[in-house]
């Protein structure tokens, strides 16, 4: 038998698709084991994410922060850095955007621009620190980014109640005005009252810009060369330290933008005492998307679909929420082990060739 699917498309795409299929099959086994019909389960899962225009909007909105954090982590991976701090960068970026939105009173386009700039700068600043520490003192970025996550958590924890406290909600900031929200009437109306917002457009623009930077610019080439082999890059005349800091800052800026999409787009206030889960999920998105911007876009939408359809599956079947979480975790797990699947494909191809 030939492998027609694999022949036609890139190996990375095939690996990711197989990971998804394996994950779905494993999830189906889970449903069978707990006495549920997997076909019905998955059907309700996909219906929950797609059955009305409003739900499609919600699925895209759920995907938006994931696209941006996935892109952030993928960009760092491409340039040889492991950014585990997307959650903290996202939180701080979102906090900066919220702070600007709650403080200034300007016309909507101007205010939104300033808020987004604040989010980008906030995220970039939060990633600059680990970048600087790596470049200057060779501190491993995994350690420093995780620490920065908690610094961000506590900064927000103390700053929000002190300066932006809600009227009755002690654990949340005041609600931002419609002026300061990425939600716009035409988009909400287009999607039947969904909470989809301008964030999705920003995310798509970010995907295009990042693929352009990586593939078509000298800067992107230099950053990638540092990722492939830092010593070779240095020998070739690339300033490695500058590249490390720059790539962390771009990565952080993307995560910061994701924070804006979450806190002033999907939500309308910022909460204390919680690190956004999208920061860690971004790692899985990036792995499933094979670190390519377009792959990240597809992977994030797939994850968004799972998260968004999960509740409806729970509501319509007897699959308890905890099992649904396990199923999603299984799918993510398979996605993350795509290396294993890659080896598996290599073996099949080799066997076909009779090696």
């Amino acid at each position, binding site marked *: 038998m030939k492998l027609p699917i694999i022949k036609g498309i890139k190996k990375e795409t095939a690996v990711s698709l197989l990971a998804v299929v394996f994950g779905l099959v494993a999830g189906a086994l889970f449903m069978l084991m707990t006495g549920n019909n997997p076909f019905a389960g998955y*059907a309700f899962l996909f219906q*929950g994410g797609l059955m009305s225009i409003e739900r499609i909007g919600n699925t895209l909105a759920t995907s938006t922060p994931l696209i941006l954090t996935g892109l952030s982590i993928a960009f760092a991976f491409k340039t040889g850095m492991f950014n585990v701090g997307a959650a903290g960068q996202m939180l701080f970026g979102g906090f900066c955007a919220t702070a600007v939105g709650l403080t200034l009173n300007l016309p909507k386009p101007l205010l939104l621009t300033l808020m987004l700039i604040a989010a980008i700068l906030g995220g970039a600043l939060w990633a600059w620190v680990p970048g600087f520490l790596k470049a200057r003192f060779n501190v491993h970025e995994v350690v420093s980014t995780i620490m920065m996550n908690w610094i961000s958590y506590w900064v927000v924890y103390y700053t929000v109640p002190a300066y932006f406290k809600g009227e009755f909600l*002690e*654990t949340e900031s005041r609600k931002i005005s419609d002026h300061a929200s990425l939600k716009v009437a035409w988009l909400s109306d287009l999607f039947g009252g969904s*909470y989809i917002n301008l964030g999705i457009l920003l995310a798509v623009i970010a995907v295009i810009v990042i693929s352009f930077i990586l593939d078509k610019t000298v800067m992107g080439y230099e950053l990638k060369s540092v990722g492939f082999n830092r010593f070779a890059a240095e020998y070739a005349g690339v300033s490695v330290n500058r590249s490390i800091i720059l790539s962390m800052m771009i990565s952080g800026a993307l995560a910061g933008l994701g924070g804006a999409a979450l806190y002033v787009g999907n939500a309308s206030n910022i909460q204390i005492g919680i690190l956004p889960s999208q920061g860690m999920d971004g790692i899985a998105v990036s792995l499933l998307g094979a670190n390519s911007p377009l792959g990240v876009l597809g992977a994030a939408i797939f994850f968004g679909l799972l998260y968004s359809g999960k*509740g409806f599956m*729970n509501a319509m079947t007897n699959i308890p929420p*905890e099992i649904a979480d396990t199923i999603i975790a299984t799918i993510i797990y398979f996605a993350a082990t795509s290396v294993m699947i890659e080896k598996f494909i290599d073996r099949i191809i080799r066997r076909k060739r009779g090696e």
Partner: protein
Amino acid sequence: MVKKSIALVLSIMMVMTLFAGCSGAGGSGGLKVGMVTDSGTIDDKSFNQGTWEGVNKAADELKLDKQKNIKYLKPTGTTEADYLKEITNLHDAGYKFIVCPGFKFSSAIFKAQDKYSDTKFVLIDAAPNSGEKGAKDVVKPNTVSVFFAEHESGFLGGVAVALQLKEGDVGFIGGMEIPPVQKFNWGFQQGIKYANENLGTKINIKAENVVYQGSFDNVAAGQQLAAQMYDKGVKLIFTAAGGVGVGAINEAKARAKAGKQVWIMGVDVDQYADGIYEGDKSIILTSAMKKVDQAAADMIKAEKDGKFPGGQTIVFDSKNNGVGIPAKNPNLTEDTTKKVGEIFKKIQAGEIKVSAEKGDLIK
């Protein structure tokens, strides 16, 4: 290439959807009650669990099918959008009576009560509010907002603790510094003060032993805080802190196993069983309860009888037995239980007033 892969994924979904067409959703008969959990799990020994037990209790009494007529959903995040999404899922699946425990649902219910006017909402510990500056609470006719007099519960617990321990230091560990938790703390301090002044006890509570950890899920931090307090000679800690309290209970159990005598006062539900470290011996002296389960069950039964108190804000306090300590407290002497019972009657009669304000109390 990308087009092809998208086409593949889409076709898989189509096939799935086709298959599902054959297996319909569970048919519905009678009242369908849904619940959306707050941050934390369904077995949090506290808010979510209490509410869910109340829903189950009502289902038993009303003979509802537990497989088809009651359901809880767990949101993926804690933003208003996450909560609204699960409310929508319940609504679309035919659950037209939805219970939401926790103050975080305030703005989600504010929107949901308008969007789904055919659905009844029970909001526990909060009132629907837009969250904008200066906004007033709006309880629509399809919503009931439920509050508890936590300070009265804390007061009774404080009196029980003072009567049982007679003298020594006690402490308090809270979760987030929010009114429901603060009121437990303030009531607790007032209860101890009352016992010291009127019942001849000598219990001391130092400012350094009144702590808000800042979250409801940091088990490790709860354990550390409890260890520090016990090391300083504190005999009992009142925990009103969800998962943080679980950490404190673990620390107390470890110490009790090692032969030391330390106590915890539980919160929200009767936590006696969670504090068992050997046989049937528990480190839970008593618990300051707020009967979330009863509140949830009462509202469901009221709906069934056509007496849903829509548009109202209901307070569960000692007058309607909505707060208090458990009926059975194996670690309290009969004398203590009897005296606490008398105090409870005095609060019910209004002879003892417990303040819900901080006043000159600690934190």
